[in-house]
């Protein structure tokens, strides 16, 4: 039973003399999930889930007696519980904190653009979208293959959001999210009569159904599973390595923190305008921007949580850092104008084709999948076991599948001579249990990194 409304919360906040501002975010989520598996040669649904969730979160700023300081708290509010005690606890908690003071804009932006953030087919009927994608999965599982289908998952959700700021801004938006995965396995008897088996799990996130590409997801998982038994361990050494867009998306989104006012303020690793993004780079020079305007991308939005309109922002131009991404708070702390602080990472493509990248050195290791790539945001290093790779040998004209061993790299060192493909790819990633911002990427589908350490 609702005891109070959002307007009443805003009125109560306005009445509190110590409250200097607030950001209220309300979200309604509808999510459908299906977990498929093979049950005696038939496609079975192991779990079928329907989720409806509502959340109201408030970031409240309070005045402190100390000059130039303010307090703040982020807290969820529940309309089914009395408002007064929740608000008292929040204001009291905020007063215990201590931040350099900053202010929301006096007046909200007007004429905010409309961005394409929700697939209209999902927005209209989540259930129908799930049914149609499930039917497609059924058809893909039924395809005769050399591999065995193991399992699949399908999540489709719609997130309706409202943003209310104390300066009067009210902004409504919707975002759709789609997750799917497919696992196929391969088994056969080896020369000693023992059964050997391995698998390939392919996963993907998207905002729009057109970017889901279930055919590619399932066919690629099956194709790669088919090769998973014809593998060798890598020879230890240093290799030119081709990585895919998923890897580039993760590395660039992680490394973006070096270009933020937040890092500068907290004395975390920071690259200032005028410096080289990759010191001494001599390959394809990186041009990188934040673009919150791309249609159906993971971090597309019109306005930030702090009420600033979000527009494309060039951060790195031909390897030269040209701007610092600063939200209102950290822009104020660093005494710089606020900029776009959210958006999809866009990297300019290179000039070579995927095939040319693979042929650019006598021996090129193409990583198809890492077991778990762990990038370190502070040092820019990354490392992982190799789940599946291909070794392209131009001298012998052979391609050998590789599994095992690990790869260690560093953005500063291994991107120095990087070459990017002219083919591009669009990638999205979300944390499944969290409604926070996603990570979007639009840029080269492949990159050739140099001199990467591999141990086999």
């Amino acid at each position: 039973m609702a005891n109070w409304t959002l307007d009443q919360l805003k009125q109560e906040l306005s009445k509190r003399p110590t409250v200097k501002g607030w950001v209220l975010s309300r979200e309604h989520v509808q999510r459908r999930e299906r977990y498929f598996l093979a049950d005696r040669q038939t496609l079975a649904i192991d779990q079928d889930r329907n989720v409806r969730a509502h959340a109201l979160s408030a970031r409240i700023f309070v005045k402190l007696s100390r000059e130039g300081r303010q307090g703040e708290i982020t807290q969820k509010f529940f309309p089914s519980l009395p408002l007064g005690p929740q608000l008292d606890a929040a204001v009291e908690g905020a007063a215990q904190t201590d931040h350099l003071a900053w202010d929301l804009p006096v007046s909200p932006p007007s004429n905010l653009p409309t961005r394409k953030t929700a697939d209209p087919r999902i927005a209209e009927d989540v259930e129908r979208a799930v049914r149609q994608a499930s039917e497609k999965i059924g058809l893909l599982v039924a395809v005769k293959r050399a591999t065995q289908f193991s399992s699949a998952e399908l999540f489709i959700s719609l997130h309706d959001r409202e943003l209310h700021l104390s300066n009067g801004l009210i902004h409504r938006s919707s975002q759709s999210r789609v997750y799917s995965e497919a696992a196929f396995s391969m088994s056969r008897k080896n020369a000693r009569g023992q059964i050997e088996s391995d698998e390939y799990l392919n996963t993907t996130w998207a905002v729009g159904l057109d970017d889901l590409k279930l055919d590619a997801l399932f066919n690629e998982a099956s194709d790669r599973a088919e090769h998973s038994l014809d593998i060798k361990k890598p020879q230890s050494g240093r290799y030119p390595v081709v990585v895919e867009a998923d890897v580039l998306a993760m590395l660039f989104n992680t490394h973006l923190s070096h270009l933020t006012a937040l890092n500068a303020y907290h004395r975390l690793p920071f690259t200032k305008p005028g410096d080289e993004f990759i010191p001494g780079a001599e390959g394809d020079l990186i041009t990188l921007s934040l673009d919150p305007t791309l249609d159906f991308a993971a971090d597309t939005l019109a306005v930030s949580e702090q009420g600033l309109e979000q527009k494309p922002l060039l951060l790195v131009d031909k390897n030269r850092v040209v701007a610092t991404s600063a939200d209102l708070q950290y822009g104020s702390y660093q005494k710089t104008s606020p900029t776009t602080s959210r958006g999809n990472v866009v990297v300019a493509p290179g000039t070579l084709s995927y095939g040319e990248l693979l042929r650019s050195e006598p021996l090129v290791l193409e990583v198809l999948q890492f077991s778990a790539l762990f990038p370190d945001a502070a040092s820019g290093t990354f490392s992982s076991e190799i789940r599946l790779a291909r070794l392209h040998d131009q001298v012998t004209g052979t391609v050998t599948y590789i599994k095992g061993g690990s790869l260690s790299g560093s953005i500063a060192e291994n991107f120095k001579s990087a070459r990017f493909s002219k083919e591009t790819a669009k990638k999205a990633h979300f944390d499944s249990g969290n409604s926070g911002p996603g990570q979007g990427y639009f840029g080269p589908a492949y990159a050739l990194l140099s001199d990467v350490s591999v141990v086999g």
Partner: protein
Amino acid sequence: MANSILRATLDPELLPLRKTFQQLLPLLDQSPKHPDWYGSIYFERKHSRSQMANLRATNVSSQVTIGAVLRIYDGYTLFEQATDDLDPSALTRTAQEFADRVGGTPPSPGALKRPYEVPSWSDRLAFTLDPEITSQIPAGVSAETPVHFGVRFERDPARPSTEQRVTRLKGLVERFVAIAIEEGMKPDELSFVMARGSFAEEESIFIDRETNLSQTLYRMALTLVTMSSADRIGDRVGGLGGLEATEVTEEEMRIQIRKLRALKTAERLIPGKYRVLVNPGIAGVIAHEAFGHSQEGDTCARGRSKAWELHKAGESVGNELATILNSPAIYKNGATSTAAWGSYFFDEEGWLAQEHVILDRGKLKSPMTNLTSAIRLGIPRTANGKRENWSQGVYTRQTNTYFSAGDKTLDQMMKLLGDGFIATECAGGMEDPKGMGIQVGIQYLEEVKGGKKSGRVFKGPAGGDIQLTGYTPDVLNAILAKSKIEFDSASPDQAQHPTNDTGGCGKYHKEFVFAGCGGPWMLLDPIMLG
């Protein structure tokens, strides 16, 4: 002194909701039209309060997740309807619509019906259960008896005010700065210090036709991060219990600063095979990634685990020292008085916590399960049905996964190590349940020569983390020795369970849950590091 034990209680405000769930159950369970349906209801409320202090600010946040999951297993599929609209009339409407939806969903063509037999309390009490569980079950318990389990604590975690918590964290940050200077760092060299404390009350209710369970856990954590440029040392202490779970000593803080200093002069490791001594935390991650994930029943049911094939074939996948257990019933973690990080009294599908051996001296035992994987595989249920939160799906998940203890002291292990490396700081890991690969990240290695630390420290070949990789049976055959739980003493262990660290797990790259991982110190040779 049994009456002096302090335990976490269920908020009385939740009692009307508990009654509502009991009233809703007949809509989901054994309805006249669907006598085979197994209905159940899971509810959770997690209220986490955290405070943070760093060199430039202090912060406070309060997060609550609250919701219910209505569940029907129809013999083919587990259907769930998750909602946070907990008004009784809304719940009744949701339950009715949910039952109608499930009733109108035909099974997949050709699917095999596998009905579920719901165990009664007498069935449940026939299992070997920890006294911490049995002591909280009323005598004469029946299906209607509300049974509450509360975690034991010594010092009430709710008592300190927000101001007192923030003041403590600010004090820790200031102390780190002072220690850094005492340890020879220049004032500017310690670029970032952060102390974060959190206290979460995790309350849950599970109701089916045979049980009416609730539990309250207090999850305590203190995270300390120090950085010097891009070098970073992070440490988290915590467990389930009271304020005693987050104590940190001056010596532990000093060691953290020394580790950070050592990283400043770290060399780069030449990739290769080495002799390495890993601490209990890293031993636990090896256990978790080796035959933790591949012994998750849902992974087996999906045809994605090699362990299921090897278990059925009875093949050996490790040596005599390779014994791995999973237990949510660790109510005294190592030599401490607090419960281990991945502990609880029952899982999110109402199954009571028990210790489960998943690998016994190199031989795989029956996998861990959740409801549907146990039914599909035709094997016993274990208490491993977990979800990220009420809005996420339930999977077979690990709780506390650890190697069994050995018989050596740490001094003896160091002598056995001789020349090699010590690994104490974990940096993640990943499973490969079908391909049987393993990846365990290590932040850095300390070199040992002649059983003594040489003072040299090594990072990975590119200056980042080091990855321990290999074929899982090879790694488990490389275990040469294991320490006692109380490894600093030659006396027999008093502690019952090896120490489990505070960890997390992201299964299938996305579903995050808390997980403990631990064991003894373990000596391995040869191990691939790169």
